[in-house]
C-alpha cells in the first residue's frame, strides 16, 4: 500500500542519490543498474546494433528532430493539454489533480509518440516493412497509422485473447491497411505476441524493423522508446509550472511495459521534491496470483532481451499475467523501472481491476472524460496518493498531482459495459439491440467469432 513510512524511507535513499550529484534522467543503457542488457539471440545482435547506430545519429541530427517535431505538432496534435480535474480532485483528499492528456493525441494514446519516431528510423534504415506486437491494440493501431503515413508495410502480432478483448482495434488496424496476426501460443496475450514478432524479425531482418511498443526489450529499445516519450514529461513540466507556478508534489502513471510512465517520469526524476508513483495491474488482487504486478511480486530474470523484474515460477518459466486491461497484461516491465524501484526513486504499487474500474467510472462522471482502463490504474493510484499527501494538511489544495492520462477509453467501452452490468444475456446493451459482442463479465472468456484470419502459416 501507499504508506507514509515507506514513502519517506525511499525518498531518503533517492535524496541521497540525487544529492550525490548523480542525474537519473538520462540513463543511456544498455544497463540500468544490473538491469537491461541484451539477452538476445546472436542472430539479432547486428539488427540491434543497426537500430542503435541509426537512433544515436538521428538524435543528434537537427533535420530528424525537426521532422519528428513537425509530426508531433501537425499530425499527433501535440502539445497535449494539461487539464485540471477539479471535480475528480474532491475524491482524492482535495489535492489538485492535473491530467496530462495523452488521450487527445491522434490515435488516442501516448503510443503514437514512439511509433512516429521509430517509423522515421525505419525509413532511415531503408526498411520497407514494420512489425509490432500489441496488447490493447493501441500500439498496433499507432503502428498501422504511422506505416500508412510513411508508406511502410505493417504486420501486427496480437494475442488471440486480446483480439477478442479489443476487437474494435483489430478492425481499426485492418482499416489502416495492416495485417493482424492472432497469436495462439501460450497465454495468447502480449508476451506471446512479442515472441512471435521476434520470430518474424529474426527471419526478415533485412527488410523489417521491429517497432517495439514499450520501454522494454533489448538495448537500445528501453532508452530509445523513452527518448520518444520524453516529450510527455517535458510538456507536463512546463505546463504545471505555468498553471500552478511550482513543481508538482507527485506524478502518477500506469505501468504496462512502462513507456508512458518513463516518458512523464523523465522530466521529474532529478527533482527530489517530486514523489513519483508507478501503478501496476493488480488484477483480481496480488494475493490471488491473478495479476500483472511484476515489480511488486516478481523477481529479476530475463525475458524478451532484458534483465528486469519478471513474474516467474520456481523453474524460471514465465507466469501468465492477468489484468482487465490488455495494455497492462505483461509479466515483466522495462528495465529502467526495475532500477528506479530498487534505488527507491519511484514507488510501484498494484491497483486491482475493481479499483481501476471504480476510478474509470469516477472520471467519466466527474470530468466527462472516458479514460483507457490502463490509465484508470493511474487514476485510482492518484486517489490514494492524494489522500496520503493531504492527510492532516490544512490546505489540501496546496498539494499538486499530475496523472498521465495515457489513453482514451473508446476501445474499452465494451469491456466497461460488461463490467458495470450494462448488458443483457445476449450481450446487448440493456434495453437496446446494440450488441457489444463481448464477454458477459470481467473474468469470463468468450467464444466470439471475429473476422480475422486464423493464425497464418507457421514460419517453417
Amino acid at each position, binding site marked *: 500500500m501507499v504508506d507514509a513510512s515507506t514513502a519517506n524511507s525511499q525518498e531518503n535513499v533517492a535524496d541521497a542519490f540525487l544529492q550525490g550529484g548523480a542525474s537519473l534522467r538520462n540513463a543511456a543503457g544498455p544497463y540500468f543498474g544490473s538491469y537491461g*542488457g*541484451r*539477452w*538476445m*539471440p*546472436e*542472430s*539479432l*545482435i*547486428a*539488427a540491434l*546494433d543497426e537500430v542503435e547506430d541509426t537512433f544515436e545519429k538521428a538524435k543528434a541530427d537537427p533535420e530528424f528532430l525537426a521532422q519528428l517535431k513537425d509530426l508531433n505538432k501537425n499530425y499527433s496534435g501535440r502539445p497535449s493539454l494539461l487539464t485540471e480535474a477539479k471535480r475528480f480532485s474532491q475524491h482524492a483528499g482535495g489535492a489538485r489533480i492535473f491530467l496530462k492528456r495523452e488521450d487527445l493525441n491522434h490515435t488516442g494514446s501516448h503510443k503514437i509518440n514512439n511509433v512516429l519516431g521509430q517509423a522515421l528510423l525505419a525509413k532511415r534504415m531503408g526498411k520497407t516493412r514494420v512489425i509490432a506486437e500489441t496488447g490493447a491494440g493501441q500500439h498496433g493501431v499507432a503502428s498501422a497509422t504511422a506505416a500508412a503515413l510513411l508508406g511502410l508495410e505493417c504486420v501486427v502480432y496480437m494475442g488471440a485473447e486480446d483480439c477478442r478483448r479489443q476487437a474494435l482495434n483489430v478492425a481499426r488496424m485492418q482499416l489502416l491497411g495492416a495485417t493482424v496476426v492472432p497469436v495462439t*501460443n*501460450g497465454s495468447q496475450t502480449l*508476451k*506471446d505476441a512479442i*515472441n512471435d514478432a*521476434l*520470430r518474424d524479425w*529474426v*527471419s526478415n*531482418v*533485412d527488410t523489417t524493423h521491429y517497432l517495439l511498443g514499450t520501454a522494454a526489450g533489448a538495448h537500445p529499445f528501453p532508452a530509445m522508446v523513452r527518448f520518444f516519450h520524453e516529450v510527455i514529461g517535458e510538456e507536463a513540466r512546463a505546463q504545471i509550472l505555468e498553471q500552478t507556478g511550482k513543481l508538482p508534489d507527485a506524478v502518477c502513471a500506469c505501468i504496462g511495459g512502462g513507456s508512458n510512465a518513463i516518458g512523464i517520469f523523465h522530466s521529474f526524476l532529478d527533482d527530489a521534491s517530486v514523489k513519483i508513483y508507478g501503478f501496476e495491474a493488480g488484477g483480481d488482487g496480488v494475493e490471488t496470483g491473478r495479476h500483472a504486478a511484476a515489480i511488486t511480486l516478481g523477481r529479476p*530474470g*530475463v*525475458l*524478451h532481451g532484458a534483465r528486469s523484474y*519478471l513474474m*516467474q515460477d*520456481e*523453474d*524460471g*518459466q*514465465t507466469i501468465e499475467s492477468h489484468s482487465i486491461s490488455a495494455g497492462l497484461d505483461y509479466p515483466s516491465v522495462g528495465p529502467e523501472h526495475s532500477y528506479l524501484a530498487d534505488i527507491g526513486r519511484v514507488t510501484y504499487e498494484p491497483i486491482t481491476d475493481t479499483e481501476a474500474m471504480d476510478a474509470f467510472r469516477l472520471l467519466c462522471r466527474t470530468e466527462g472524460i472516458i479514460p483507457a482502463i490502463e490509465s484508470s490504474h493511474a487514476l485510482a493510484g492518484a486517489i490514494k496518493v492524494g489522500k496520503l499527501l493531504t492527510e492532516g494538511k490544512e490546505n489540501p489544495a496546496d498539494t499538486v498531482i499530475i496523472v498521465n492520462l495515457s489513453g482514451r477509453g473508446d476501445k474499452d467501452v465494451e469491456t466497461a459495459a460488461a463490467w458495470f452490468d450494462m448488458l443483457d444475456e445476449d450481450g446487448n446493451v440493456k434495453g437496446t439491440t446494440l450488441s457489444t459482442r463481448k464477454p458477459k463479465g470481467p473474468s469470463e472468456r468468450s467464444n466470439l467469432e471475429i473476422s480475422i484470419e486464423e493464425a497464418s502459416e*507457421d*514460419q*517453417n
Partner: protein
Amino acid sequence: MTEQMTSKSAAAIDRAKAQGRAALIGYLPAGYPDVQSSIDAGIAMARNGADLIEIGIPYSDPVMDGAVIQAATTEAIANGFRVASVFDVVAGITAATDAAVLVMTYWNPVMRMGVDEFSRRLAEAGGAGLITPDLIPDEAAEWFAASDKYGLDRVFLVAPSSTPERLAMTVEASRGFVYAVSIMGVTGTRQSVSSSAEKLVADTHAAGAERVCVGLGVSNADHVREIAAYADGVIVGTALVAAIRDGGVDAVAQLTKNLSAGLGRATAQA
C-alpha cells in the same frame, strides 16, 4: 577457442573426425512426452549414429523455436516437466552411452536456479556443457566463471548476420564447438540448406574455431551430406522431434540411422 581443459564435446567431434567424417548431433526436448521417453530416445540416438546429444529444456518463451519444437515443449510443460529433471535425462543417457550430452537452454531457467548451482548439477550428471540460444558472450560473465569451475563446454551461436568482430569474440568465448546457425530464422524443417551456411562455417573457422557445427533446418540425409562436406558436425532438431511425436522412440532410432548415412565426407562418398 578456450581449450585449457578437456572438452567432452570436442572429444566426441574429434572421434568422428578420426573416422573421416563429421559428427552427428541430435536434439530432443527433455520431458517430451515424458522424462523416461527422453532418456530412451537419447540412448536410441546415441546407438544409431549420433555422436553428441542435445537435450533441450522446455521453456515458456522459446523465441528461437518454430512451431514443431514449441508444440512439443509446451506439451512437456503441460505434462508437468520440471527443470531439475533435465539432470536425470542427462545422467540416464550418459550412464548408457559414450555420447557427449549437452543441454540446450534459454537462459532464464538457469538464472532462476542459480548459474553455479545449475552448472554443478549438470557436471554431476555427466553433462558436457550448455548450448545457449539467447545468451551472448557479452552477458555471460557468470557462465564463464561457472563453466570454468565445473569444466563445462560453452557453446555459443554465430549467425550469418554476425560481424567479423563478433565472430572473433564468440569463437574466443566458446569451448567444445561453435554453433553456426544456417539461416536467419527459427528452428524448423526446410526444403534446402541455406547457402549462407557454408560461408559462415568458413568464416568461423577463419576466425579461429577448430570445430564448427551447423544447425537449423537440417532434416534429412541429403542435408546432412551437404553440410558434412564443410562442417565438423551437423545438428538435427525439428525432424527428430517430429519423429518422436509421430512414431516414438523407434522412429527416432530409424531417423538417426538414416541421417547418419549422410555423414561421410562428400568426396569420400563419390
